[in-house]
């Protein structure tokens, strides 16, 4: 039914090897046409076969290893072939061209995952996780995506729903069999602690999901300060340590990311503050408005002051915006004479770090502080099982709001069957996170747990 698709599965560029993946009913026969070696249509499933890719004129294009995997135990649940070529751009592209000429179609972005989902191989959460896995930049990200692919996150949601289904089915039994006095009667009083428990569980998942988001999307970090306070030096210093992930491409957010710094496996996306470049003689050159906007959008603000300068009004104004934000105040140039009056800083002393970028002092302390602030040390050691994409988190947030509605309805003594309507809606909405749901689940639960009937 499905046509056969192919694509280069490894990242484009020169690497040691490249993998071309082919999926669909004719994948084995198509690859067989351009393969010289064993007859791939005869080999056992899940085998790796050595040979050569050849063109019409029997010219060898590349020496390859070909993995043959037959449905349904493959990623897409279709027949799948993976060709390991030598990673050069030219041979890999040539093999791809040959495949396209032989009857494959170029896969659209995400099409393998889409097929896996459509073929019932993975649920919605898992499909999202696969995309995350592909985009993972750090170990923690990879681990988190792996857990999601394994369905661990799904079971987290299922656990919540199981709690709810028991409440729902019990209320339904009360409604449908009102004359049975040996079934527990769910009253508002019985329900209150159950709902509180449910709320706590959702809150916990949400909190951990925040971490998940941080792992996945990184921490938006900005360095704020007056001209010549050493912002660029700090940035360069931090980047210096980890040149490997310095990129110039736009990050995962709309902001222009100047660079990425990795601390304990968590990515700090440094927001470009170049926009606040200032003319040298004007005090307002700090660009108060622009800075405020950047601070607003940041997850972490590194506020830099010079030890050898007094506190100015514009700085004081910006300081008022630090409330409810995660921030650190870095005092630089401690090798110079002290002019700054620290008593004027109306902030927690814990948040102050003394730096001397020139002498490379205080950088480790800064990093440790960040690890502490975001509980990064805990994250790394834990099994990262939580919702990590915006869709799931926003559904869960919505559910939390509805649970709170239930709480107030209980307070107002709404009849239990009205409250059940709300609980059932929440249960259904939770089901949309991992694409499960169904009425029959409820009926089965009802009849397996309660003894009723003529």
């Amino acid at each position, binding site marked *: 039914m499905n046509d056969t698709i192919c694509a280069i599965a490894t990242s484009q560029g020169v690497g040691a090897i490249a993998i071309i993946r082919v999926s669909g009913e004719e994948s084995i026969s198509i690859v067989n046409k351009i393969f010289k070696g064993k007859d791939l249509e005869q080999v056992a499933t899940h085998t790796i076969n050595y040979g050569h890719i050849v063109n019409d004129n029997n010219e060898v294009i590349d020496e390859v290893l070909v993995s043959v995997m037959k449905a349904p135990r493959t990623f897409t649940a279709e027949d799948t072939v993976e060709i390991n070529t030598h990673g050069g751009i030219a041979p890999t592209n040539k093999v791809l061209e040959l495949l396209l000429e032989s009857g494959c179609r170029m896969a659209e972005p995400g099409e393998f995952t889409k097929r896996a*989902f459509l073929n019932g191989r993975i649920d919605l959460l898992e499909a999202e996780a696969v995309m995350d896995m592909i985009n993972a930049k750090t170990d923690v990200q990879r681990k988190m995506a792996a857990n999601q692919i394994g369905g661990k996150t799904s079971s987290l949601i299922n656990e919540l729903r199981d709690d709810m289904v028991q409440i729902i089915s019990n209320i339904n039994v009360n409604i449908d*069999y009102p004359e049975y006095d040996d079934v527990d009667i769910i009253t508002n009083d019985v329900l209150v602690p159950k709902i509180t428990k449910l709320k706590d569980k959702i809150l916990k998942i949400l909190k951990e999901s925040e971490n998940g988001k941080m792992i996945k999307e990184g921490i938006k970090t900005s360095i704020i300060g007056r001209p010549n306070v050493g912002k660029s030096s700090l940035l360069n210093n931090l980047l210096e340590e980890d040149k490997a992930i310095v990129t110039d491409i736009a990050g995962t957010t709309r902001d222009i990311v100047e660079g990425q710094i990795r601390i304990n496996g968590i990515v700090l996306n440094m927001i470009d503050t170049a926009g606040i470049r200032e003319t040298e003689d004007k005090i307002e050159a700090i660009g108060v408005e622009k800075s405020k906007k950047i601070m607003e959008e940041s997850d972490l603000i590194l506020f830099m002051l010079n030890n050898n300068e007094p506190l100015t009004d514009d700085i004081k104004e910006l300081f008022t915006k630090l409330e409810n934000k995660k921030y650190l105040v870095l005092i630089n140039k401690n090798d110079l004479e002290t002019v700054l009056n620290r008593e004027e800083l109306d902030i927690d002393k814990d948040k102050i770090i003394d730096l001397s970028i020139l002498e490379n002092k205080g950088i480790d302390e800064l990093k440790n502080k960040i690890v502490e602030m975001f509980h990064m040390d805990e994250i790394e050691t834990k099994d990262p099982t939580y919702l990590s994409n915006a869709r799931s988190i926003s559904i869960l947030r919505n559910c939390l709001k509805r649970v709170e509605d239930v709480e107030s309805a209980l307070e107002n*003594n709404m009849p239990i069957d009205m409250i059940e*309507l709300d609980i059932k809606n929440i249960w259904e909405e939770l089901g949309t996170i991992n*694409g499960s749901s169904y009425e*029959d689940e409820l009926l089965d639960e009802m*009849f397996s747990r309660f003894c009723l009937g*003529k």
Partner: protein
Amino acid sequence: MYEIIVVGGGHAGCEAAHAAAVKGHKTLLVTSNIKNIADMPCNPHIGGSAKGIVVREIDALGGVMGKVADKTHLQIKMLNSAKGPAVQSLRAQGDKIAYPKEMLNELNSLENLEIREAMVEDLIVEDNKVKGIILEDGEKIESQAVILTTGTYLKADILVGNTRTRQGPHGEKPSNHLSDKLKEYGFTIKRLKTGTPQRIDRNSIDFSKTKVEPGDDKYLTFSFDLEPQYKIEDQIPCHLTYTTEETHRIIRENLNKSSMYGALDDIEGIGPRYCPSIEDKVVRFSDKERHQLFIEPESRYYDDMYLQGFSTSMPPEVQEQMVHSLPGFENAKILKYGYAIEYDAIYPTQLKNSLETKVLENLFTAGQINGTSGYEEAACQGLMAGINASLKLEGREPLVLKRNEAYIGVLIDDLITKGIRDPYRLLTSRAEFRLLLRSDNADQRLRRYGYDVGLISNEQLERLNTKEREIQELLEWTRNQKLKVTKEVEEEFVKRNYQVPAATLTYEQLLKRPEITIEFLEQFEKFPYSDEIKEQVEIYLKYEGYIAKSYKEAEKLLKLEKKQIPADIDYDKVSNIASEARQKLKEVRPTTIAQAIRISGVNPSDISILSVYLKREYGKDE
């Protein structure tokens, strides 16, 4: 030559024949035994949770069940009266002598209806169209449409202990060939079973050891047109008792003698999940010390008491022991032993939403033959089959009730969309819009449909119009009228622990508070209009938020209901659909996207693919 022939005189058959005849069609009702018209072979009650609402819906549409029950019941009560209005439902204890007699009177009064005693064994079929019926003796009777409401009588087997006897519930002859013929015509047949408990002589029960369950002390009716036909003080009570440790011991020790637990090795039928036998209950819920049993009178005219909760297929000698182990039943005399019954049903995904079969044109089926259980479930299908067979003859579109309009709509949609695995019973939990499908508003939901198809008179419609106008007027009144908080008013609020209103509030504002009822407010000022109108206003004001939410949900559904799937769609051409979904779609052939979503095994991804296909191939989506 008849226009419509109804085969079977149970609850489905009666409603079908009644509707067809009232709509002016020359109708024949064929039954194997006139004495068994509208018989209640199992439990003696009508209504119950969700089912009571169905009886109201039947009445709203112009059916007869509610009226006949109102005229003959032994007691009536409102279930769930302490819960919200959406789950309240009437339940009456029927009279197994008076109810069928009254129903027969009702049918006999219809000039277009003829009733005949005969056994139907085949259909006249030409070009996949039904043209009439063939009786046991070969006689052919022609008609334009046939409605099958054969209940449990297709290849019925009575099972008791290790015996299997081919007969109906009263020992009568079942139809042996009709289900084979249906199979030949292309129907998929499914074997189902159900069971019934013992009947006990009223005079042999010591009621002092049981708990009394009286009817309500408030007058109630199923019908929107009848005044109460009974006296509160004349209602006959039910009683309650429990199984004992001894009962459970007897059952466990004799388990292998039960038909269902190995005494018969040829059981195919699937029994209802919600009606387990007492054997099932004792086995599956072994930790329960006792099970509740209801002792229900069957009639004013004889002494049989129905022992609800004790359904069994144990042999008679074990049943004797079991019954005698119950408190109050030490000397009980069993008048009729419990039994299980196995019967053939057609698989309901072979039906259209009008209850016409997809296999044979002009053939309609209703009731237990479609895999349901329960008198009310049967009656409402009979009514819809009767209406839709008539509409078809009249060249009109069928009446299809939606899930947000009636429990009847939920039931039929469930049957034709999801099929069945065990006998289907209506439950409030099957309705996603139960807040809209209330007992109190069945007339507002459905009367106009009844009028439109010709079962509701001008006078009945006018009554509804008046009611709706008065509701609006009273709502308006509560918006303008204010409660003056005098010292006396303040005291009353304090006495009840209610928060005293700070200043002068309108009645509308006050009634939105959960604890404040019209009844409470009427001690300060009498509200105009009848109790019925006041009830509607109170429900509307108290649950406005919830009701609005339900309407919003229902709108979402309606949007999807509007997305039609062409009847000629070839699912093999829709690529990428999962194979299980493809097979289910081919079987059910849903008429709208909304229906397709409800098919189990069809996932959201299949639906999106299907939607895209429809848009591309048929150029319309909305």
